[in-house]
């Protein structure tokens, strides 16, 4: 965005040598750029990220890595200072190449499990904020979770409160970014912490002889960060505990599902569904986020939900997600209502299998197609 295109590196414009070198490299770079453009053009439109999702994903990824990085670096600096290694601490504290860029360049961030989680998070949030709000007919009536906060049953009240706290924490304050937690499942968080520690080490390689000191400080800082992390604090985990505490009867479930969408509480909606279906949060989220929501309609039918709440849920999701088509939902709705609960349960069996087992079966099927 700069109006001044001259690159002022350290106050000096680039020298003739560098210009010549750059010109020599230009052809290769132009070719490489063209290859990327061609590949980009022929990518299938199905499943491609739209610009909003792409931007949100980039921001989430950066924020995630940076918050882990800040934590490890801060603690590492403190450890080194405590041990009298002030010079080394300063090296570690100095900002350099961003860890996000380094990890992306190394291809580590292409980790399918990490990207699956992050893409789902971004889509879930986009869907949540776009849901049409639905105010109660009685303006004095508190919204869904707020009613449970007042509930005489302490377990219900405290689990509802935990959802509000987790959501407020995730959304952060006016200067959001610095305080929000990484909020990844433990396994992914574990992986990310060590990646970041390694990237920080690489950046401080100039330390030379004192590398062993740096290594011990970084690994201690990483371990501290791992020990302090509790995946049970995640919003998704809190919502699942809330859903389990409500343990909705079949006749209550429909209203809860519809109302949670009307309050834009997509995470609570998914958790209620996961609990009712006996699925993991991730699997239920997959059903909800899939724009071709056939599995979701079957899932709702397997819970024996009547037509009206299914129509309300489908309508809300179609309004919130430009990839869904209301007309084709209306067509599907009549078909879905002809499926009885037992049939729907049978059709959903594959979804209930262990996720790793499902992934392995899919991988085999894919490899067969490639042969």
């Amino acid at each position, binding site marked *: *965005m700069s*109006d001044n295109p001259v690159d002022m590196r350290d106050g000096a414009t680039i020298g003739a040598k560098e210009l010549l070198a750059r010109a020599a490299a230009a052809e290769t770079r132009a070719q490489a750029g063209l290859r990327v453009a061609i590949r980009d053009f022929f990518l299938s439109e199905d499943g491609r990220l739209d610009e909003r999702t792409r931007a949100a994903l980039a921001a989430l990824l*950066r*924020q995630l890595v*940076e918050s882990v990085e*800040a934590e490890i*670096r*801060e603690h590492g*600096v*403190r450890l080194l*200072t*405590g041990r009298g290694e*002030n010079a080394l*601490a*300063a090296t570690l*504290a100095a*900002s350099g190449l961003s860890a996000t860029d380094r990890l992306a360049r190394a291809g580590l961030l292409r980790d399918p499990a990490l990207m699956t989680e992050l893409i789902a998070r971004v889509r879930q949030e986009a869907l949540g*904020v776009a849901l*049409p*709000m*639905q*105010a*109660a007919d009685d*303006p*004095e*009536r*508190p*919204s869904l*979770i*707020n009613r449970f*906060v*007042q509930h005489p049953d302490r377990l219900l009240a405290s689990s*509802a*409160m935990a959802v*509000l*706290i987790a*959501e*407020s*924490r995730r*959304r*952060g*304050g*006016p*200067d*959001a*970014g*610095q*305080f929000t937690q990484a909020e990844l499942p433990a396994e992914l968080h574990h992986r990310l912490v060590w990646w970041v520690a390694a990237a920080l080490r690489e950046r401080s390689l100039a330390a030379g002889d004192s590398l062993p000191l740096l290594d011990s400080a970084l690994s201690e800082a990483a371990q501290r960060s791992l020990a302090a992390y509790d995946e049970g604090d995640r919003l998704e985990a809190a919502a699942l505990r809330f859903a389990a505490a409500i343990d909705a009867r079949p006749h209550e479930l429909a209203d809860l599902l519809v109302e949670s969408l*009307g*309050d834009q509480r997509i995470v609570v909606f998914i958790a209620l569904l996961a609990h009712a279906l006996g699925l993991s949060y991730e699997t239920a989220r997959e059903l909800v986020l899939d724009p071709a929501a056939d599995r979701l309609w079957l899932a709702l039918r397997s819970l024996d939900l009547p*037509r*009206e709440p299914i*129509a*309300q849920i*489908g*309508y809300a999701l179609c*309004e919130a997600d430009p990839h869904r088509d*209301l007309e084709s939902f*209306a067509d599907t*709705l009549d078909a879905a209502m002809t499926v009885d609960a037992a049939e729907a349960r049978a059709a959903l069996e594959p979804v209930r299998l262990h996720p790793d087992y499902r992934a392995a079966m899919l991988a085999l099927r894919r490899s067969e197609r490639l042969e």
Partner: protein
Amino acid sequence: MFDPVLPVAVGRLDARGRLIEAEARLLELNERAGGNVGAPLAVPQIATIARLAQRLGIAISRNVIAADGEEDLDLWVRAQPEEGAVRIEVSGWRPRPAWQPPAAEPGRDGDFLRSAADWMWETDASLRITFLSIEAGARCGFDSSAMLGQPLTRLLSLAQDEQGNLPILTAVAAQARFDGQKAEIRGTGRMVRLEATPRTDAAGRFAGFVGAAHMLDPPAHPPAIEVPLPLPEAPFGGFPDSFSQRLDRALRGPLGRIIANADSISAQSEGPLKPDYAGYAADIANAGRHLLGLVDDLVDLQAIERPDFATVPEAIDLADVARRAAGLLAVRAAQSNVRIDKPALDEQLPVTGEFRRALQVLVNLIGNAVRYSPPGGMVWIRLERDGAMGCVIIADQGKGIATEDQERIFEKFGRVDPDEQGGSGLGLYIARLLARAMGGDLLVDSAPGMGARFVFMLPCRD
């Protein structure tokens, strides 16, 4: 944002979408669109909702914009299936300007509030808290997590304004944005100023607030940070002051380019173009200019709202400043076919104030007067002495300002007509702050239909 009492027109369609009956307003809209009783509903947006409600078998509410002759109408439509028919309720009925400032989306309002707030909050329609910046409690002496789900009044003790009203309750009734609700954080003795924008559901009902809180007093003990070494650079944020600078840098350049390009498309300087595209480009340029004005105002606001903001006391001639301001607006006035009657060259009114700021206030006032004047109208600028104050009076022949709106126009983002085009809602707020910072004031007196009269006063210099 709209009338609290919406005129509702009810109608019924049969299973095939044909109009069975409708109340006058809806019937007329349908007839103007070429429809009739017994024929399919001729307003496509409403027909779509009715058909969806019938196919899905549920009530559906939506906000739609329907063309009515030259005008666009902003409508709230609710369709409810009933045995073999669909009942439709249409309310709202507000004409919509061709282009609106892009501030209607609650998400964007949230970003805007966030930019200056100490902490953020949200409530549901019953004013129970649904979201609180979690670290706010630690900073301000309350337990954020215990307040979630509680009525807002449990966290805050709301204070009445000078008229004895609670701005937040007035805002609930009107479903409007509010600013300047003062409150004490219970049990801490600390005061905050609240502002918020309402959320509206698909049926146009109030669904809660998205709000910001500004601390009115500095914390007694700044939180001690024990840092052995300079900490790594924070990845986000920065100093509050740098916000306006970044905003300025980040937006002014790109906006300038958008405006310039849109203007040249609209002028068809690169070759002929379909007229509607040229029209769109003109809309883009206007929207860009609106945003640029907003950036200017925000940058200004950031400086003026600082507690240590001060003006330079200069010896100025208010008559001279008024003549210069009128001169600056002469072209715009001529374009709108409005005449400005400015003080004669021999008039003088020596006062104390900062020249640049006094000029800014007068340009704002005269600019408004020109904007609200009918074509062929006149804007008068008169000078007067009132005790120790030198006054400039700017009067126009516009539609005037109702008594109940006269304070609102000086509020931050305060507007009498929220649908009105242009302006950021900050101009008069800034102007009054400036006038008061110079030891003067800015007042209005006006009655609807009588034009508006603004009085800008500064202390006389004898």
